[in-house]
């Protein structure tokens, strides 16, 4: 299971890659694999405010609907248009071309509540199969 060391992770299986105030967000490889054949991704518009722990979009497989939860609060500065046209990118490259949104973070404290790679690895190991 690929869990890059340089990212932070939420218990809802989103990753966040901060660069200064800006951060890219996506879903983890674990989540993509468990959702299965991803056929639809709904993302917020640029400029939308997102709140840590709240839903910012939806990811759908053939038979399931999963909400996307923001790992940190902020304002959406970019969305990955490509992934809305090619949802399979989320599964193929969850940490790369399958990224979802970019935000400008509004609360420095949010990141400290997230897990590092080791913590996330332990977390998914503790989940029932």
């Amino acid at each position, binding site marked *: 299971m690929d869990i890059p060391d340089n990212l932070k992770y939420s218990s809802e299986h989103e990753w966040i890659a901060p660069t200064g105030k800006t951060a890219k967000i996506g879903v983890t490889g674990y989540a993509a694999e468990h959702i*299965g*054949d991803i*056929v*639809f991704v*709904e993302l917020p518009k640029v400029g939308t405010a997102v709140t840590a722990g709240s839903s910012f979009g939806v990811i759908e497989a*053939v038979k399931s*609907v999963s909400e996307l939860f923001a790992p940190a609060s902020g304002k959406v500065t970019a969305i990955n248009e490509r992934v809305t046209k090619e949802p399979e990118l989320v599964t193929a490259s969850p940490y790369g071309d399958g990224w979802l949104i970019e935000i400008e973070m509004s609360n420095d404290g949010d990141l400290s509540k997230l897990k590092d790679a080791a913590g996330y690895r332990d977390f998914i190991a503790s989940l029932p199969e």
Partner: protein
Amino acid sequence: MIPFAGWDMPVQYRGLVEEHNAVRSAAGLFDLSHMGEIFVTGPDAAAALDYALVTAPGKLAVGRAHYSMIVDANGGVLDDLIVYRLGDTRYMVVPNASNAATVSSALKERLAGFDAVLDDASMRTSLVAIQGPRAAEILQPFVDVDLTTIKYYSGTQTTACGVPAILARTGYTGEDGFELFVAWDDAVRVWDTLLEAGASRGLVPAGLGARDTLRLEAGMPLYGNELNRETTPFEAGLGRLVSFAKPGDFVGRTALEHAKDHPRKALVGLKLNDRGIARIGYPVYLPAATDACGSITSGTSSPTLGHAIAMSYVPVDRTAIGGEIEVGIRDQRASAQVVPMPFYKRST
């Protein structure tokens, strides 16, 4: 694995879309042991089933089968089922797992006064289905009959994989395929034999997830989604099943004679024009209307067609092909249009 009608059922083995595509292009193997199997036997078996069901099983030739329904006195659907005529005086009725007990007790009641007995074999009978364009060639070496002589919608007692089986050419996928009814203890042998023999021809095990997307593409209703006691066969678009021509009374006849010309709703197929997937329970609106006129009964992203499809009940004057309908998806309205069903039809 998920709980389903009292059974633990696999939603998927390797992946829903892979399983779905395998059934369309090669073959899939389904464990449908949860389905009910009820035998009705006796000199009056034909007459009893003519009285109990909306179709005319008495007219079936021995070895043939048909799709049927059992309704209550109000014409509401208790279940949809397949009836096989195994002999002059012997039938097998196959209801949905969730309704097997209901159907069994309703049939038992309706058999009173007829010289026929009911044997509910559901809890000792397994069903293994092999479905897809390569089903026949994979199955042929393991059965005693020439499969080219087996017509669609027929069932016959034979031997399969060395065990006694009722072999039927029926299914719920929109593809050619066969269903094998065998004793519980024999099911694993049938499953393992076919899976091993078929692997090189693209046969994969297929779960409930693929079963649902396959039947939806094929425009087949699912009890609990499109069918329930508040729905008549006419409203579900299955009025052709109801045989008013058969002699004698049958349960629901009076109610259905009225229901035929007084449908309260109509089932349609929808194709979404906008992005998004209409799911069961999502509200359905006439264009620009504030109040919902119905709700989605089944919906998915179609693996074969590559766009979202759904079924919904709509007002009876809104069934014209091409008619516009809106679906409430979260906080938005998505545009959809009425399209003919089945959504998918196999080419051969």
